[in-house]
């Protein structure tokens, strides 16, 4: 078994190899740690690596495997986005504010996946507090896109996507508040799933916008995402918004038969604004699904246009409330030599938060302030319902809604950094899904001039299964998900 074969195998394949004792978790973990060592200098995808802890868990996994006591992910190496609290392991959220923060507890996602036997290798780079679509807002430096080192990997889960695409780990976690799993998955050529709001517990995920945040898996295949979702999901007493619903065996229930599946194509996504090359790739992927038995139906989501404006009131408003906790007193960054308490608050926050985070706090504070609450926050919550109703009506006609994951391929560093609005447009096809709380995934749909593009599939609430089925079928019939960046250029 060569390292290269191991590093690009799917979780499902690795699981079989581990079960068959063809490879040990320790060997696999060593191979991943070595790959992080080789590739991270060029990519900056990982903020913290925990080699000793990882090798200890790998050996423990090997002894479980030997005794036949394995769980669904026993011995599988994994990297967590650095937004998940990990007991005893620094959790920065990509911010100077939390540069030295070591949580006293594990996020529910972390403890659930640990219980399923994963081996945590470390923590992935991300946009600061998950606010960004390019990974350029991270205090720990930008992540490079492995397909072209002069381009962004997308964001905010850009470190996770880049690490996965380069074999640093076969499985990574992300969070998605407005597209932060799906857009980087699209730009790095991997599969990423944002589950339904409430499917996965938010306990221990550093909060950005609490009514939109949702954690999910990113992997090389839809099959792997199905396996990982079952491991992550479920009701949690520690998160009152986690749904009290049974968690299906998404992997066991995968069904590639798409006969009769109705896929809706919103006219508002496939309009003249859609980049022609992206349209061609997305349509090529959809015609594969059509060949597999699905029917494509034009639908309307008439208020799609308002998603960006709605999102950029609600998300900053919730963020401004959530980020009020960083006061320089109880945890996180504190400024030097504060002259009084007010100075301590003001400077700790202004020095600890980066520019984009401060901009969103300002916008959110404004939208919630006396005299503007009705005009902004209340209004945005009303439009949120209108947008959600559009989806509900559309799902009376179709089972899945399809579109692009992002408006284009990865763009060069700095291209959109000076203009917040241009950056916000990166999530034009993903934001509405968070507003409506729906599940959405991005699966590779081929390359444009050597750079990956994703197809987005959106499902009904709590129907992750149907979008996983469709993506799985697409991955059976095409090999777009197997395309890999040239790693030699990265290591050299």
């Amino acid at each position, binding site marked *: 078994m060569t390292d290269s074969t191991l590093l690009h195998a799917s979780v499902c394949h690795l699981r079989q190899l581990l079960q068959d004792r063809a490879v040990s978790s320790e060997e696999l973990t060593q191979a991943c740690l070595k790959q992080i060592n080789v590739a991270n200098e060029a990519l900056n995808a990982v903020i913290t690596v925990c080699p000793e802890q990882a090798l200890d868990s790998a050996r423990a996994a090997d002894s479980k495997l030997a005794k036949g006591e394995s769980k669904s992910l026993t011995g599988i190496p994994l990297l967590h986005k650095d937004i998940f609290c990990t007991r005893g392991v620094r959790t920065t959220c990509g911010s100077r504010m939390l540069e030295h*923060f070591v*949580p*006293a507890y594990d996020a529910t996602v972390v403890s659930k996946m640990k219980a399923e036997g994963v081996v945590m290798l470390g923590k992935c780079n991300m946009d600061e507090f998950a606010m960004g679509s390019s990974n350029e807002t991270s205090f720990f430096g930008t992540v490079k896109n492995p397909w072209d080192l002069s381009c962004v990997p997308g964001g905010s889960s850009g470190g996770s996507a880049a690490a996965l695409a380069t074999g640093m780990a076969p499985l990574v976690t992300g969070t998605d508040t407005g597209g932060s799993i799906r857009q980087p998955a699209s730009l790095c050529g991997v599969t990423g799933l944002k589950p339904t*709001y*409430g499917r996965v517990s938010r306990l221990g995920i550093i909060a950005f916008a609490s*009514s939109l945040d949702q954690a999910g898996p990113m992997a090389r295949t839809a099959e792997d995402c199905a396996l990982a979702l079952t491991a992550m999901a479920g009701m949690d*007493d520690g998160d*009152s*918004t986690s*749904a*009290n619903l049974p968690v299906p065996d998404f992997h066991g229930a995968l069904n590639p038969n798409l006969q009769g599946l109705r896929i809706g194509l919103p006219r508002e996504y496939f309009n003249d604004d859609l980049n022609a090359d992206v349209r061609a790739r997305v349509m090529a992927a959809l015609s594969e699904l059509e060949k597999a038995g699905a029917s494509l139906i034009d639908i309307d989501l008439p*208020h799609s246009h*308002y998603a*960006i*404006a*709605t999102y*950029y009131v609600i998300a900053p408003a919730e963020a*401004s409330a959530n980020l*009020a906790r960083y*006061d*320089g*007193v*109880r*945890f996180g960054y*504190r400024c030097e030599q504060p*002259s*009084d*308490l007010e100075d*301590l*608050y*003001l*400077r700790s*926050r*202004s020095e600890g*938060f980066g520019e984009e985070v*401060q*901009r969103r*706090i*300002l*916008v959110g*504070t404004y939208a919630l*302030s006396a005299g503007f609450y009705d*005009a*902004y926050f209340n*209004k*945005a*919550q*009303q*439009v*949120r*319902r*209108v947008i*959600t109703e559009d989806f509900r009506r559309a799902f009376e006609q179709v089972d899945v809604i399809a579109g692009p994951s992002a408006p284009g391929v990865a763009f060069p560093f700095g291209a959109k950094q000076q*203009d*917040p*609005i241009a950056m*916000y447009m990166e999530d034009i096809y993903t934001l509405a899904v968070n507003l409506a*709380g*729906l599940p959405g995934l991005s699966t590779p749909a081929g390359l444009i001039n050597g750079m990956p593009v994703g197809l987005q599939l959106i499902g009904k*609430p709590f129907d992750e299964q149907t979008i996983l089925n469709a993506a799985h079928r697409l991955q059976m019939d095409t090999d777009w998900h197997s395309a890999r960046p040239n790693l030699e250029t990265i290591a050299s």
Partner: protein
Amino acid sequence: MSVSPQDVEKVALLARLTISESDLPEVTERFARVLGLVDELNTIDTQDVVPMSNPHDMEQRLRPDAVTRSNEREALMASAPSQEQGYFLVPKVID
């Protein structure tokens, strides 16, 4: 809606952020652009639409008020930037 640098300074104070004099024009300009983007909401009629704060209109689930974890005061206090004898230290508030 137009925004003045003074408006931005006022919001910054509410949010406990400071903006340097030299950054203020650019922060104001970018802030105004974001507000311009969201002003688009005024072009849609939402009379009688009930605001949506949770995507599934879920009811708040309550649990019994019971102790479920042991006291981890020391572990949690360890994250404090400055502390003494189990208290958070801040600059003198009362003379």
